[in-house]
């Protein structure tokens, strides 16, 4: 029962309590760039989720064989490989989405969320738990993108997933479609999520290693190792 609760917790924490976009403040660049329309946001979110699940599982599977000194290059190679695979499939089967996502699709490789989960979670947990973490974080990223995109598209363009909304289309606030508008919505959403999770989301009461949102998972082991190596 406890194990089931633990698995469910891993799956759900990415949706709100440890949402990578609104709580961990990761992946800001693709979030702002691809949240103009719901379709783009959904495409980017699902693409990143697919890469996140696959990379998490593979990294977890071979974590014992990856030397610690080259773990980051290894993660990057694996993530870049999956990103390229996803990119090729999107190019082949969803060309309009491929055009819309543009450079942000290959840039998933350096998305902090994916590398962050590889380093903080997948490299220390089982394949199953890593897959759950990938699903949770991926869906959290997708939901965050969709929530920002819904506001920006509905109010900024007067459409929902490309379909015109009768009254809103005549009173659209174009500013929300621009980058500053994206920042504004992003900021408001962070505030809303903070309010919703008040007392539950990780609070920055401490500084240094312990202030890291992933300290609960990492336990400060990596920081200790880094400190020892430095000495």
């Amino acid at each position, binding site marked *: 029962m406890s194990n089931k609760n633990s698995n469910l917790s891993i799956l759900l924490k990415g949706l709100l309590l440890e949402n990578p976009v609104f709580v961990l403040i990761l992946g800001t660049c693709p979030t702002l760039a691809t949240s103009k329309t719901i379709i783009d946001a959904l495409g980017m979110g699902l693409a990143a989720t697919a890469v996140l699940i696959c990379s998490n599982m593979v990294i977890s599977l*071979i974590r014992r*064989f*990856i*030397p610690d*000194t*080259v773990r980051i*290059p*290894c993660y990057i*190679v*694996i993530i*870049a*490989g999956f990103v*390229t*695979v996803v990119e*090729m*499939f999107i*190019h*082949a*089967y969803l*060309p309009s989405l491929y055009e819309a996502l543009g450079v942000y699709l290959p840039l998933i490789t350096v998305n902090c969320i994916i590398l962050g989960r590889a380093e903080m979670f997948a490299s220390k947990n089982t394949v199953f738990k890593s897959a759950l973490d990938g699903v949770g974080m991926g869906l959290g990223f997708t939901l965050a993108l969709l929530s920002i995109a819904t506001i920006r598209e509905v109010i900024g363009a007067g459409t929902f997933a490309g379909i015109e909304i009768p009254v809103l289309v005549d009173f659209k606030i174009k500013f929300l479609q621009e980058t500053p508008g994206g920042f504004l919505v992003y900021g408001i959403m962070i505030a809303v999520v903070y309010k919703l999770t008040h007392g539950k989301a990780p609070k920055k009461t401490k500084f240094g290693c312990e202030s890291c949102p992933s300290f609960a998972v990492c336990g400060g082991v990596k920081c200790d190792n880094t400190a020892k190596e430095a000495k």
Partner: protein
Amino acid sequence: MKKHLTTICSLSIISAVVAILLAATNHITAPIIKAQENEAAFAALTEVFPDGEGFEQIDISKYKLPSTITEAHSEKSGGYVFKIETVGYDSGFVIMFGIDANGTITGTKCIKSKETHDAKNTYGKTLTGKTKDTIDSVDTISGSTKTTAAYKNAAKDAINASIILGGGTVDLRDEAQILNDNLSAALPDGESKFTSLFITEELDGVSAVYKADNGKGYVFISGENFIATDANGEVVSDVDDELKLSISDSAKQIILSEIKEIDISRYEDMPKQVVKAYKTTSGNYVFDLNAAGFGINGDAYYNPSGEYIMIKVSATAEGKIIMCETISQKESNGIGDVCAKPEFYSQFNGKEETNYREIDAISGATITTNGYKTAVSKVFEAIKILKGDG
């Protein structure tokens, strides 16, 4: 050592596995992507060639086509589609042209441009259905002269390329090259270097005179003919006696003509547009004029240059303009600067006080045209003053 080997092997194995995964994915997706690209390319081609059934790319390096052509496709019925890169108002732009087997434009599409005027999107449609002979009949869009001129030239290049690919021959030289080649053919001793002479004498049937830079002679353009004389004015071209006599007479007038500056400060009523005045030995007049066009009278919003249009005009003592030429100008780019083109200023040649207004205005440049006309009109006033009957 073992630690290093383990590190190298781990990274190499991971890289190799990823490479295999990518190769397998590429094997699956590459044909689909290629098919999509072909479909998109076909769609783009049929947009400018709606009746096209099948296209095949042509290796343009095998043909001597206009330099603006960057891509060519043949169509099954004998037509072609060309991709042309040219320069418009202030940037390069890329246009697709469809040309059918009869040399008629079937469609155009601007696929890349930073032109500010909407002409980049709308002007192409007006060219559809036009041929090499009718393309110049399409009106230029006011305020977008350079963009529309670039469009027309690109269309001509596309039609010329279709003729060449169809086995025909086309003269790809520009107007300046053709002129210089004709001058050189008439006077080979001129070594292909000629300077246009400002004509101060009324020459029978002569529209332009060029002097060889090495002093070996002159070339007179009379109608379609290029007639050369030696430095002494003796006709060396093989023409009939009547034309030979006429050109020889013209040449001697040119050679013997001398001009002397008149002190215009002595004439209180001399119009302010007249900067300098000269009189020729034959009694004709030459004037340097300042025309207040857009550079002087323009709206501050459009940042006028603050400079006059400098014009040179020669006229007979009876008040008939022999030649008019724009010497310098800083009018609006692509609009008023048309006043520097021979097509505009040569309209004044042969005009008198009664009919000088009958020239075509520059489209979209009313202030430039009015300033120019006013300055030229002062020639008639100045002649009267200089002759003492003003």
